[in-house]
């Protein structure tokens, strides 16, 4: 077969496999790709992941097709004499084209991601820990409900500064409201991962790490520690709930009165806490 027809066959096979993969993975299975659609964050992340998958599949298909095509068509005869392949050492035009295409893809991806991240309101980067001065925020970030996530070995507690700074071991957030998580730690590095909310932010001692979420519907979500933090790292989890606004009001009121005694003993609300190191002589 001539070089040309090899090329044509390969391209056709690649195209075919790409179409099949795209249809199966993106069109049919695309909806089920995590992380679901509970919040604005998960929806945005889902869209990004599906987009990246759609871009990755042709690349996958190309290498697969190529390896299979080469294995079938470019093999030496099993017991014949040693034969040599076609002695070409490169093709400048093809190399330049390859560089150009990959560069375009990468630049496109980076532009897609960067514009998204830098777009401020409505960015899909709001669910990740952005440090004390978030760049990506929801539209009405000023009115967001603040929830402080305090990690320590190996429990989570949560403070609601708008409700008397009450601290509770439960996490509940109201549906349809912008929530601003302030994640910090009292000892080692943990990571706050609210899986179904699409929120992940490292809890670093002495640092404030902000992430946002707006839940679209009620339900429960898992919270897991996502950074190795010692003995019970794998067990450092809890379940949170997204509830209706009135349920939330009622619940937080209950927490306030239940923990009133201990709230008085807490240090004043702050974005970071500096527990003094214990030094025994």
């Amino acid at each position, binding site marked *: 077969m001539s070089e040309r027809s090899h090329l044509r066959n390969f391209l056709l096979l690649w195209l075919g496999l790409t179409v099949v993969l795209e249809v199966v993975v993106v069109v049919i299975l695309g909806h089920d790709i995590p992380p679901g659609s509970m919040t604005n964050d998960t929806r945005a992340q889902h869209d990004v992941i599906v987009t990246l998958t759609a871009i990755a599949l042709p690349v996958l298909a190309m290498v697969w097709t190529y390896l299979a095509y080469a294995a079938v068509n470019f093999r030496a005869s099993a017991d014949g004499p040693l034969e040599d392949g076609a002695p070409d050492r490169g093709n400048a035009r093809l190399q330049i084209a390859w560089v150009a295409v990959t560069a375009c893809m990468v630049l496109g991806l980076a532009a897609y991601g960067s514009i998204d991240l830098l777009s401020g309101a409505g960015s899909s980067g709001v669910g990740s820990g952005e440090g004390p001065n978030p760049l990506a925020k929801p539209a009405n970030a000023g009115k967001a409900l603040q929830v402080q996530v305090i990690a320590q070995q190996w429990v989570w507690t949560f403070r609601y500064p708008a409700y008397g700074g009450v*601290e509770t071991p439960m996490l509940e957030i109201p549906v349809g409201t912008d929530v601003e998580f302030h994640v910090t730690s009292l000892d080692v590095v943990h990571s706050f991962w609210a899986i179904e909310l699409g929120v992940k932010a490292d809890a670093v001692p002495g640092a404030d790490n902000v992430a946002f979420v707006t839940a679209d519907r009620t339900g429960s979500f898992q919270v897991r520690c996502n950074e190795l933090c010692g003995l019970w790292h794998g067990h450092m989890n809890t379940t949170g709930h997204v509830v209706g606004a009135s349920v939330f009001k009622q619940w937080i009121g209950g927490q306030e009165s239940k923990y009133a005694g201990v709230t008085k003993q807490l240090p004043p609300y702050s974005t970071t806490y500096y527990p003094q190191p214990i030094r025994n002589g």
Partner: protein
Amino acid sequence: MRGRLLGVIASFGLLVGVVVVYFIFILEEAPPGVAASVHGTTAQLTLQTDASYGHAPYPDWVTYEARDPSGHWQHSTILKIPAGTRYVHVTVYEYDTATGLRNPFFAYVRGTVGGVIQLNGRPMNYVDAASPAHTFTAPDLGLNVPLPGIDSSAKNQCAAAPCRTSEAHNTISFTFKTPKPGNYRFQCIVPCALGFLYGFGGPMQTIGYMDGMIEVA
């Protein structure tokens, strides 16, 4: 020839075996379980917390000890509770001095029957955040019990584990519902370990000292 092959296989197998056995030996290392004594539908656990005069190989680590049904103190934090019981009643003899909580929230008693503990016979539902020497905290059960420390100027302080009740101590008792069969971790949440900048190393991260398992089966 055949002998040599067998020799090669045998020495190969021996090497692999030694390595595997070593790791299993090291990894399975855990303290023995201590069974609760059962009175009717209540399982009774009796524990003590000791300051830094405990057990080899880490004699100056703070530690729990548990009393087995025959009345002997065991150096263990693997607590076995029969699934048939309805309540677990825990008595802790606390022989350590106070360190104070890093997060005062854990001065609040949670998860016990009635939401209280008996501190030397007095019911409490929270304590002063500076007073705990340890806590008995099982996050998966929602259980948190602060264990106030003894006065550091107390006279007859314990000096060798296991401590005796004639020595200065606080007695904390509480009851919680027997959870579903399973294994539940418990830990101490006071940064009480001796000698660490961060207070949470060593015994605080070692099963058999300040961490353990409640095994309901």
